[in-house]
C-alpha cells in the first residue's frame, strides 16, 4: 500500500468515525431536500395560476423553475458547509502533533496534500450524489431536460472542489479548527465578491478580469447548461493553484 492510499484510507476512516461528517451531511441533505420541495411546490402553484388565467394546461419549464433555483441555493449552502468539512484536515494534525509523524515518515508533501484533498472530495461527491434523488423522483411525475441538470452537477462538483481547496489551504495555515473554518469561509466569500466588484467597474479591463476571477460568472454559465472549456479550466486551475499554495504553506512550517 502506497503512503498516498494509506493516508487516503485513514482520512476516510476518520471522517466516518467523527460526528462532523454526519452533522454536515444531514444538514446539507435536509436543506437541499427542503429547497427542492419548496421550489417544486412553487412551480406547482404557478401551474395552477396559469391554469386559472389561461384555462389551459401549460408546459412549465421545470428546469428553469426548480433546478436552476436549486443549484443557486445549493451553491450558497456549500459556502457555509464545506469549510466545516475541511477545517480539521491539517489543523487537527498540528493540534495532535501527528504532523511531526507525517513529516518524519518517508512521505512526500505532494502525497500528503493530494491524499487529504481527495479524501474530502470523495466525501463531498458522495453527499452530492445523494441529492440526485430529487431529479430522479421528479422525473416520475413530470418531464424535463436532463442535460442542464448534468451540467449543473458538473458545476456543483467543480465549485465544491474549489471550496474544498480553499478549506484545505486555510486548514494548513493554523492549528485552530474554528479559525480554519472562518478563514476558508472568508476566502470563498472574497472570491465571490470579486465578481460584484468587477460588475461595479463595468466593461473595463480590470472589471472583466475581476469578474472572470470570481466563480459566479462561471457557475452561472454551467448551471444554465453551457458547458464551456474556459469555465472548466477556471475551476481546475483555481483548485490546483490553491493546493499548490497549501503545499508551500505546509512546507514552510519546516522553515519557521
Amino acid at each position, binding site marked *: 500500500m502506497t503512503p498516498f492510499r*494509506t493516508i487516503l484510507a485513514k482520512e476516510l476512516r476518520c471522517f466516518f468515525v467523527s460526528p462532523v461528517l454526519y452533522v454536515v451531511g444531514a444538514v446539507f441533505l435536509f436543506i437541499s431536500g427542503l429547497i427542492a420541495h419548496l421550489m417544486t411546490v412553487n412551480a406547482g402553484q404557478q401551474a395552477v395560476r396559469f391554469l386559472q388565467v389561461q384555462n389551459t394546461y401549460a408546459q412549465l419549464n421545470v428546469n428553469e423553475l426548480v433546478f436552476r433555483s436549486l443549484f443557486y441555493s445549493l451553491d450558497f449552502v456549500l459556502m457555509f458547509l464545506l469549510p466545516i468539512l475541511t477545517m480539521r484536515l491539517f489543523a487537527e494534525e498540528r493540534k495532535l502533533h*501527528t504532523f511531526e509523524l507525517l513529516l518524519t515518515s518517508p512521505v512526500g508533501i505532494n502525497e500528503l496534500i493530494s491524499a487529504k484533498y481527495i479524501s474530502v472530495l470523495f466525501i463531498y461527491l458522495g453527499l452530492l450524489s445523494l441529492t440526485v434523488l430529487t431529479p430522479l423522483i421528479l422525473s416520475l411525475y413530470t418531464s424535463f431536460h436532463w442535460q442542464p441538470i448534468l451540467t449543473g452537477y458538473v458545476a456543483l462538483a467543480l465549485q465544491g472542489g474549489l471550496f474544498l481547496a480553499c478549506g484545505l489551504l486555510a486548514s494548513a495555515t493554523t492549528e485552530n479548527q474554528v479559525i480554519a473554518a472562518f478563514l476558508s469561509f472568508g476566502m470563498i466569500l472574497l472570491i465571490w465578491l470579486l465578481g460584484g466588484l468587477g460588475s461595479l467597474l463595468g466593461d473595463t479591463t480590470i472589471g472583466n478580469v475581476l469578474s472572470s476571477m470570481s466563480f459566479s460568472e462561471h457557475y452561472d454559465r454551467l448551471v444554465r447548461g453551457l458547458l464551456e472549456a474556459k469555465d472548466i479550466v477556471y475551476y481546475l486551475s483555481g483548485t490546483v493553484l490553491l493546493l499548490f499554495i497549501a503545499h508551500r504553506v505546509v512546507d514552510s512550517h519546516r522553515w519557521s
Partner: protein
Amino acid sequence: MVSRDWTKLTFDLGKYQIFPFCGFMIAVQHVSKHYGHHTALDDVTFHVKKGEILAFLGPNGAGKTTTMRILTCFMPQSEGTATVAGFDCLDRPMDVKRHLGYLPEIPPLYPELTVDEYLTFVGRLKRLTPQRLAARKTHVIDQVGLGSVHHRVIGHLSKGYRQRVGLAQALIHDPPVLILDEPTVGLDPKQIIEIRELIKSLAGSHTIILSTHILPEAMATCDRVVIIHEGRIVAEDAPDRLSSRLRQSEKMSLTVKQPQPDWLERLRTLPGVLDVLPSGKPNTCTIDCELGRDLREKLAQFVVNQKYGLLELKPLSLSLEEVFLQLTHQEENAGMDKSGHPDSRGQSSRSEQAPA
C-alpha cells in the same frame, strides 16, 4: 555493494549504510539553527557510533528538541551538516526518514484509532510490506507491553499506555536509528524501569539518541552523555567519567563518634586539606582535599590518634545532577567563551563548587 554516492565513500552493509572508516551512524558537524535573531543551536558537533546510546541532557529550551528535529528532517538546519546512517539530512531526507524512528516529546497519536489500526497506519507510512508489517506489529506490541490494550481506541488509554504506543510507533519498522524525545515522561516508576530496560536491550543493534532532563535516567541507560545548554554543547563524555573530570577537589565524608569542640579546626590544619565543612548530619563533616591526593589513610590515622572514634570515612563523587548544574551554571558565568572545551572549563572556575 558500493553506493552511488562516491563523494561520501559510503558502502551498503546489509540494509543500511555506515561510514566504513569511522563507523558513525549519526554525525552532526558545526550545526547551527537560527530563528530570526534568536540562535537555538550554536555550532553543535557530535557523533554517535553504531549501537551506542547517547543521552541528550539539558534544561528546557536548551536545544534538545531542535537538534532532534534537524536529525529527523522535520526542520532544516541553518548551517552545518547532519548525516544519519550515511545520508545527508538536507540532500536525502527520504533515505534518512526511512532509517530512523522518532518519538517526539508529545507522542503523535490519533485518538480515534485503535492501537492496532494506528500501528498499521504508521507501518504502511514507513512502507512496510503487509507480511512484514503483521510480523513487526505482533513483535512490537509484545516488546512495549501493549498486549492487553491493542484492540482499544487510543483516546481511551492512560498516559503511560499512550507513551508506549508512541514508542511502538517509532519501533514498528525496526529502524537502525532511534531518536527518542523524553521517552519516559509520564510513566510510573515500574514502567520507567521497563522502558529503560527495553531501550538498553535495543542498544547494539540500534543506535539511539534520547533526550531527558531526568539525570539518573541518563546515568542508568546511556553510554555517553552530551550536556547541552543554550544551544551549545558544554560537555560530552561517559556519565562516570564526566563527574570525575569535573571534580575540582576530592571530597570526603567523615563521621566520628565523640568529636572534640575544635575538631573541625584541627582537621583543617592537616596538609592537603583545603576546607572542612560540617554537613547536615551530627558528628559528620565534609572534607575538601587537594585533587589527586588520596588523604584517606592520613585522615583515618589522625582521627584514630585523636581518639575521636572513627565511624565512617568515604569519598564523595559528584552525581550527574551536580555535574549538570555545575556545567550549566559555569556556562552562564563564563559568558561568551565559545572555545569552551569542558576540560579547561572544569578547571577554570574553582569557586563554583556545587554543594555536595
